[in-house]
């Protein structure tokens, strides 16, 4: 089995084999939430919270995670949490950060460092929330923003977003006689964040939990704005098995469709989990119903473009050394 082989070939060593046991046992994102079976995003949030710890305030954009976690009068959150609207998580987080800072300065709250973390889906981040995020990052607020990218508007029924990959079938980019699914290339959001000259940008995926959590911890420790773009598999929207959620994220990384890297003060570094050589893209997309309609030519184009983007990334990594 591929997965098992992967563990044997190093991943588990990277995990330190029993690393899971060293993880914070507290569940800050409690069970009973209404996410779909096998939801990668719920998993990613659960892991993120463990990495952040209790001295954290979460500001959530409208989306799946908000809807499934806070059905009044209950909440899955054990961290202070706030939701206002779809496009403004970063702006609300700006206000929270500023508010906590000034209250602490004035001695109105305990003098203790509490991290403000904005979270949103890809729609709430790369599309409708982009302006607020850009403003918040540019202003230099001491906050982390994490985009949980499941590559479409899943909450409203799988409509395409700016983060939907090439070729994917969505309910607003369906394949038909005159169209072949989503025609555009996935918006390079991490690169846009790098362009804001913030101290820390990283990509991550729940399938590499220790890597993801380490990145969250690093971002948490940075005084200033930081951004993590976390690929979060949505079995419902990607049209794959719930159980294959983790595998799907791993394949996205191994094929280079979603490379893992960090940019610290402008310097690019590939994450340790990236393989020496990329697997064929087809290994990844053939398992997902959203790519089922693609012709060999289209897959060929997709593959070439992935290679090109990866090459561009590697150039930056090499020039950062």
């Amino acid at each position: 089995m591929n997965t098992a082989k992967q563990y044997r070939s190093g991943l588990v060593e990277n995990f330190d084999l029993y690393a899971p046991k060293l993880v914070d046992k507290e569940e800050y994102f409690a069970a009973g939430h209404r996410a779909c079976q096998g939801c990668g995003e719920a998993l990613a949030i659960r892991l993120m919270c463990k990495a952040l710890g209790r001295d954290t305030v979460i500001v959530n954009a409208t989306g799946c995670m908000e809807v499934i976690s806070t059905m009044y009068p209950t909440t899955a959150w054990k961290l202070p949490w706030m939701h206002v609207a779809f496009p403004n998580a970063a702006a609300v987080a700006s206000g929270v950060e500023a508010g906590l800072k000034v209250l602490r300065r004035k001695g109105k709250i305990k003098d203790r460092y509490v991290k403000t973390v904005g979270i949103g889906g890809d729609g709430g981040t790369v599309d409708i929330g982009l302006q607020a995020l850009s403003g918040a990052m540019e202003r230099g607020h001491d906050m982390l923003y994490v985009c949980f990218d499941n590559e479409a508007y899943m909450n409203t029924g799988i409509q395409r977003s700016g983060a939907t990959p090439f070729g994917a079938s969505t309910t607003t980019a369906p394949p038909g006689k005159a169209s072949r699914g989503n025609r555009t290339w996935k918006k390079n959001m991490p690169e846009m964040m790098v362009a804001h000259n913030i101290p820390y940008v990283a990509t991550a995926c729940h399938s590499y939990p220790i890597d993801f959590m380490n990145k969250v911890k690093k971002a948490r420790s940075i005084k200033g704005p930081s951004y993590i773009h976390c690929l979060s598999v949505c079995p419902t929207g990607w049209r794959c098995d719930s159980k294959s959620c983790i595998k799907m994220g791993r394949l996205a990384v191994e094929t280079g469709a979603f490379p893992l890297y960090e940019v610290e003060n402008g310097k690019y570094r590939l994450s340790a989990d990236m393989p020496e050589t990329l697997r064929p893209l087809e290994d990844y997309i053939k398992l997902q119903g959203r790519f089922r309609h693609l012709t060999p030519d289209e897959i060929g184009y997709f593959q070439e473009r992935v290679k090109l983007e990866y090459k561009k990334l590697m150039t930056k990594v090499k020039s950062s050394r």
Partner: protein
Amino acid sequence: MAEKKWPETWQEVNPGCIVFRPGSSRDYHTGTWRAERPIWDNSKCIKCGICYLFCPEGCISEDEEGYFAADLNYCKGCGICAHECWPGAIKMVGEE
């Protein structure tokens, strides 16, 4: 906050619909969604905790001996734990 009857009357609604009970989602048992349940074979289990780490519900916990089990009140039966358990210690079996 005292327990209130549900659904609440308008007088009982918290101001601003603020939820004062952290983690109260546990009132709702997502275990009813499950079609298959995970069964651990502890003879194969190496106690690595991968199943615990990858559970989207956070409903897998470690017992005193270091073995793992899912809280079936919350396990939705996604099968990730079984799929990711490389020693093959977890099997998904159909609910009755």
